[in-house]
């Protein structure tokens, strides 16, 4: 998806003025934040597991060619057809061609952010193929004719009242009330029939298992299996960074992914799909296609290899003060929040998206919660610097940034400056929130800023390092 025409500033401003949006985000993201903290608290090995997870991802990224070819070999041996796509257009075209070859009239989709990234919803519509989103949140987003606003909870921006309105106006089986269980029941009835009538089922993949050629999907709803089992054809679209050497490595990453995403210990349905229906099998698709998508990833491997570690858990956005205030749509891109602000310049170009890396307070919260230790704030700083170097920043910004860049390139000064800024911000604090602060009118006009913690992240990080056993 391309960054929209209106500026980020304009979108953020209107998001800030939307009180309903703030309510909706706080209900879900607040829940997610609390649940993650509990799940991590109950897993004392979390930090060691994170380091391991990061090493697994780094190992795969370093040896990507090896794992891709191993995966391809095993997938073909299992009866799968493997396709390769350099760009989002190429990937969409491959999927549409497979659908057309299968004479598909109706396609079910199990939520996949890669599918959004390559513009699959639009491509299916353009090809005149009925698209049925089966993840409940994606179903809501489809009824509202919107795009996902979060990578784990695509309908995070909707309150239950808004969902009730949509279901009442568009479901055959009306919800018995506005209570959430009644809304879910209404969607269950509406979607069940569609699962069984689809010609093609499309899913993403959370992992590609190199040594078996299987792909892994995780859902709590069970919609992935309902999407991929009844139709004649199952198509998987996956980014090439999704590889892991074996099942054991996938499990190590799943422990991190689930806790970071929803605060659960394990997803309700974790399924490994390997090839089409075998002759003796009771059910399953006759054709199984895997589309391996690059779309900027080989470039990212050269320029931003750390970002390829991302397992799309969404924790960085749940914990981001900016995301929590403006929601996902204001970012105007497929991926919102801190990880999105790093990815979007790769996918859509820095010129169109140069404002995104600025939508960050550099409070370090995202890096603190990232289960694969992606240094998001420094990657964002990298984009800011690059935008400045390439002359993409407007003149007024350039004047300000000039001073900032001078300081930022000198770590000692940078720490001092941020520490001073924190102390200044604390002066304006009233009961834990900042209601007004000079030079931040555009922000505090609508929202109270959370007061910064006494120490900066970097201070706290060093303090904890000093306390930690080597």
């Amino acid at each position: 998806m391309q960054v929209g025409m209106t500026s980020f500033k304009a979108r953020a401003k209107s998001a800030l003025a939307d009180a309903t949006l703030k309510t909706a985000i706080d209900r879900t993201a607040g829940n997610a934040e609390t649940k993650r903290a509990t799940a991590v608290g109950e897993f004392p090995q979390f930090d060691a597991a994170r380091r391991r997870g990061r090493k697994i991802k780094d190992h795969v990224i370093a040896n990507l060619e090896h794992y891709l070819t191993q995966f391809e070999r095993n997938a073909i041996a299992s009866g799968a057809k493997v396709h390769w796509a350099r760009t989002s257009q190429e990937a969409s075209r491959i999927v549409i061609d497979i659908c057309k070859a299968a004479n598909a009239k109706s396609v079910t989709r199990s939520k996949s952010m890669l599918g959004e990234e390559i513009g699959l919803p639009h491509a299916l519509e353009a090809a005149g193929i009925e698209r049925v989103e089966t993840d409940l949140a994606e179903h809501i987003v489809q009824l509202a004719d919107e795009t996902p606003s979060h990578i784990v909870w695509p309908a995070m921006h909707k309150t239950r009242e808004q969902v009730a309105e949509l279901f009442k106006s568009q479901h055959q089986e009306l919800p018995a009330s506005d209570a959430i269980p009644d809304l879910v029941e209404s969607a269950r009835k509406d979607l069940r029939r569609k699962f069984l009538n689809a010609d093609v089922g499309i899913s993403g993949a959370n992992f590609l298992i190199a040594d078996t050629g299987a792909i892994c999907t995780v859902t709590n709803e069970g919609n992935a299996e309902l999407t991929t089992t009844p139709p004649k054809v199952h198509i998987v679209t996956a980014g090439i960074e999704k590889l892991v050497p074996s099942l054991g490595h996938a499990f190590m990453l799943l422990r991190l992914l689930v806790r970071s995403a929803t605060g659960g210990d394990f997803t309700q349905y974790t399924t490994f799909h390997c090839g089409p229906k075998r002759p003796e099998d009771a059910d399953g698709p006759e054709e199984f296609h895997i589309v391996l998508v690059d779309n900027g990833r080989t470039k990212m491997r050269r320029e931003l290899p750390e970002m390829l570690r991302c397992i799309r858990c969404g924790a960085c956005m749940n914990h981001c003060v900016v995301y929590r205030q403006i929601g996902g749509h204001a970012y105007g891109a497929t991926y919102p929040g801190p990880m999105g602000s790093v990815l979007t310049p790769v996918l859509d170009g820095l010129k169109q998206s140069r404002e995104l890396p600025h939508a960050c307070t550099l409070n370090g919260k995202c890096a603190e919660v990232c289960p694969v230790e992606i240094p998001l704030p420094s990657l964002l700083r990298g984009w800011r610097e690059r935008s400045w170097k390439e002359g993409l920043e407007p003149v007024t910004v350039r004047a300000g940034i000039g001073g900032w860049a001078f300081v930022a390139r000198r770590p000692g000064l940078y720490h001092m400056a941020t520490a001073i800024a924190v102390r200044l911000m604390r002066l304006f604090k009233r009961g834990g929130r900042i209601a007004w602060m000079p030079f931040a009118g555009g922000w505090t006009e609508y929202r109270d800023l959370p007061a910064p913690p006494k120490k900066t992240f970097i201070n706290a990080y060093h303090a904890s390092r000093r306390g930690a056993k080597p």
Partner: protein
Amino acid sequence: MTDARDSILQSLRESSNTGGAGTIGGVGSDEIAAEAQALLDDPIAVRPTLPSADIVDSFITRARGAKVGATVDRIASMETLPATVAAYLAEAGERAQLCRQPTPSLEALDWAAAGIDVRGDIDDGAFVAVALWGISETGSVVVHSAADQPILSSFLCGVQFIVLKAERILAHLEDYAAAVQGDLAPRNACLITGASGTTDIEGSLVKGAHGPRELHIIIVGGV
């Protein structure tokens, strides 16, 4: 799509050779395999501990815990399975009807004697199947697609009964990976950890999103 394949692999090869951050160029398969294996070392350091020293007790604790939310029964032998299922259905106020996995160990049982009407059509009703493994760490049960294991049934039913032999319960996820290592992977290997749930509306949990509203696990033997 040979072009795309070649150009993606070529571009990966080029960036490896430049020795950019996080890349190592020209490493052989054996070294890669050894490095991958080393990443699985010392699993104890990176996985959760079980709630109890007993594997079956741990499984029950996890499966009954709020995160999985299953119910668990223990019976001594398969013969009492129909009566146990009937009692559960009666208590839940469900009809005494059931669809069963077409497998000999379930087909051999006398369901009629327990007052259960065995049906062919699932249609949101009850379904009983036998799991291949249980995993204590997560409270998961594992089913593999096969001639006698239709995958769809586990997702179309409203109430799911899973039969699990006590001796098939493994401690950790890695133990399942080790158990299937070297086997031909089935078309589908499903790790089922609770009923179908969603938190998509305001983050609040509702059971029965698309599939089962309830998961009842019956552990057989080992009592």
